[in-house]
């Protein structure tokens, strides 16, 4: 374990930026986004959630993977490649980092999505523990905590006093730690006391959060029974406007569309985020198996809370970040859905 003085953060960022593409949470016009070190906006290490989740780095909102030319009914394909240059994300939260593990289960299983893998392999992720978890946070329900270290984390940081405590997790993280050896300081036994007090404080704060006691155990598995609660689903979904915001801001939603963009005899094939909230998502030539919004809302929650866990050893496809609750214009709330399904069981 090392530590870095708050006064030295800028110097550390400069050193990282010399070697890697560095992304930091930056605030601009009230929005916090991961932006390049050089770009505009003020570094914001206080706001917990960026408006767009981490998934944009490994699964970009749109990505061209193929260029084509067509002439006289002959086709030429030109495959788009991905840079191998490493990039560093500084200050990502444990819930977002956990979402990468959930996406890995989809994109890295056979057949491997080579585009996702390339973006994933070149990422170096420095996590930042949440100092003050918010009342809308329910990461604890998914066994994630503000100080959690997930598999995808390369370095984890906890802020305490005048320092950030620096824990190198992986070989990739070691490269950054080496690079900053003149900036990082050794940790004393007094420091460890300060750090442990801070960890305990965060833990207590999490326990006090209103949603922390959310019990998911009871909605495990029983697919047909939960699916058949049509009256409950109608009530939960009746306000839905089908805007798709929940899926776009969700760090684990991964459904995508594949489209061709056409020019004259040439064009590009790209994939882009899509949403099971949209009526044309499952529309086919002979009709649509999901004809109303109730069915679409049910699909989204069933996928996150039942289908995904059934297929992935009980892991839920939700990390409790609360973005979907905050962004929903009509206050549809996954926490209410969970409570409703549990209570009605």
């Amino acid at each position, binding site marked *: 374990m090392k530590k870095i003085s708050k006064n030295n953060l800028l110097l550390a960022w400069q050193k990282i930026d010399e070697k890697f593409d560095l992304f930091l949470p930056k605030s601009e016009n009230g929005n916090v986004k991961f932006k390049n070190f050089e770009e505009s906006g003020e570094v914001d290490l206080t706001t917990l959630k960026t408006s767009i989740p981490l998934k944009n780095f490994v699964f970009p909102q749109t990505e061209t*993977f*193929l260029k*084509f030319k*067509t002439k006289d*009914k*002959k*086709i030429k*394909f030109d*495959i*788009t*490649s*991905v*840079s*191998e*240059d490493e990039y560093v994300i500084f200050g990502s939260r444990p819930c977002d980092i956990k979402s990468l593990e959930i996406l890995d289960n*989809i*994109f890295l299983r056979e*057949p*491997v*999505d*080579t*585009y996702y*893998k*390339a973006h994933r392999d070149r990422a170096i992720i420095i996590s930042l523990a949440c100092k003050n978890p918010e009342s809308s946070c329910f990461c604890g329900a998914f066994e994630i905590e503000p100080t959690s270290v997930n598999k995808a984390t390369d370095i984890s940081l906890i802020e305490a006093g005048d320092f950030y405590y620096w824990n190198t997790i992986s070989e990739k993280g070691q490269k950054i730690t080496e690079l900053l050896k003149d900036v990082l300081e050794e940790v004393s036994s007094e420091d460890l006391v300060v750090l442990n007090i801070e960890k305990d404080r965060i833990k207590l704060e999490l326990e006090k959060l209103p949603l922390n006691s959310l019990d998911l155990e009871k909605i495990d598995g029983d*697919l*047909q029974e939960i*699916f058949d609660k049509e009256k409950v689903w109608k009530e939960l979904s009746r306000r839905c406007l089908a805007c798709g915001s929940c899926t776009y801001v969700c760090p684990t939603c*991964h*459904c*995508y*569309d*594949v*489209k*061709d*963009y*056409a*020019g004259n005899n040439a*064009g590009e*094939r790209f*994939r882009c985020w*899509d949403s*099971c909230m949209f009526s044309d*998502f*499952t*529309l*086919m*030539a*002979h009709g649509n*198996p*999901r004809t109303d919004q109730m*069915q679409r809302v049910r*699909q989204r929650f*069933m*996928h996150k809370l039942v*289908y995904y866990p*059934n*297929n992935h050893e009980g892991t839920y496809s939700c990390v409790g970040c609360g973005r979907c609750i905050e962004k929903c214009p009509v206050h549809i709330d996954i926490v209410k859905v969970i409570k409703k399904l549990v209570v009605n069981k």
Partner: protein
Amino acid sequence: MACTCHEKDPLVPKIAKLEFVRRDTPDVTTFRIVSPEGEAPFEFKPGQCAMISVPPLGEAIFSITSSPTEEGYIECSIKKCGAVTDYLHTLEAGDEIGIRGPYGNNFPIEELKNKDLLFIGGGIGLAPLRSVINYVMDRRDEFGKVDIVYGARTPEDLVHPNDIYNVWPAEKNTDVYLTVDREAKNWNGNVGFVPNYVKELGFDTNKVALVCGPPIMIKYVLQGLEEIGFKKEQVYTTLELKMKCGFGKCGRCNIGDKYVCKDGPVFRCDEITELPDEY
């Protein structure tokens, strides 16, 4: 630096060409597809699918209608019903398409061996069944009695006319029963919907049934088979949902815990009853 691993990405199609184009009905055409070197674009099993692209219109997934025993090509029988299929119908031998696959599971050929088989198809639903039927015909001694019930709206809509009128009925221990929805000129065969025809024919239940057709036909055929004593474990069918990737990632064909593109399209009917009713 940029890597070259993406050339093997499952979303990236290969170029293929049409060796042969045969108009089966006013809106169904069978395309024989080969690699630029004139070989089969990939190996597959009966029931599997291929994703065909025609840039800049996009991609669509189709079942393969030829049998793996026919080496050197794959065939798809495609109905005109959208932008991609409309364009495919303008293509001729020698034209190029993009192709990727094979996708999905397959009919359980090994389990069907030495058993009596009942194939029930409706309209373009004969396409995936033909792959199994031709497999069985090419290894005829390995399978028992074969009954094929096939129907379409009109006599002109019956696909693979040469197979249904000439090739299959001439095979040993094989019967073909054809039906059309309405009376028509030059039609002396049965008139009526496939589910009713199956019940009228009254097959003994010591068989495995393989069913494919429009969703409404499948639904009534399955009911009918149950009424005459077939158990769900004896019946296989295929499901269809919109697909974009073909290998269980894009999320479109998700029903319950399953993805039709990866865990299907072939399902044994007792598996289907465990799925939420959203297909």
